[in-house]
């Protein structure tokens, strides 16, 4: 998963005892991922419906063009899921690097300056 929550391999190995706080935390973390996937599902649904299906309802069946569009739309959406994830990781990495540098700089300047206020 993107955020290292409840990783599959972790589950099989040292599984926490049933009902323990550790297990409850693991379960709630995993539920968050489930929620996220459900949300993702709903958004793909909405997006590809909007992009591919024209709002003129003379017929109930999908045209071949609509069907092909939907297939490609879902494929593209899921491919971009990874692109977005990588970009977000990159951005948050940059931000935490900047924050870490700023914190280090503050500490250094604080140490150098004599205290006396």
């Amino acid at each position, binding site marked *: 998963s993107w955020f290292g929550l409840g990783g599959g391999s972790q589950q099989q190995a040292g599984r926490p005892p049933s009902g323990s706080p550790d297990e409850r935390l693991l379960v709630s973390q995993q539920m968050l991922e489930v929620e996220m996937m459900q*949300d993702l599902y709903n958004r793909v649904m909405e997006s590809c419906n909007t*992009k591919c299906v024209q709002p003129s309802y003379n017929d109930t069946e999908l045209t071949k063009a609509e069907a092909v569009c939907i297939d*490609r739309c879902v494929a*593209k959406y899921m*491919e*971009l*899921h990874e692109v*977005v994830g990588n*970009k977000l990781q990159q*951005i948050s990495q940059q931000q935490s690097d900047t924050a870490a540098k700023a914190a280090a700089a503050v500490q250094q300047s604080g140490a150098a300056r004599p205290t006396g206020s």
Partner: protein
Amino acid sequence: MSAQSPASMSLMEQELNQAQIREIFTSFNRSHQRCFTDCVNKFDRRSVSDSEKNCVANCVAKYMNTTQRISMRFQEHQAMITGGGAVAQGQGK
């Protein structure tokens, strides 16, 4: 995210942690959808083109900047409302 064991985290801390993670996930999905909508308009093939990838990457970065700015202003307003008063007002630009 806190690395404390659940036993040492209060229930409130755990719930707040959850809410924060949920918010991050939702934001991720929202930016994905927004950028997909704005950047991908042709379905002549299955794979994503380089220009689409660029567009999405830029869009995501812009989205992050936007949400951060909005979040900042929102917090300033919250502070004003909840009685930060004159102190908080000086922060706005």
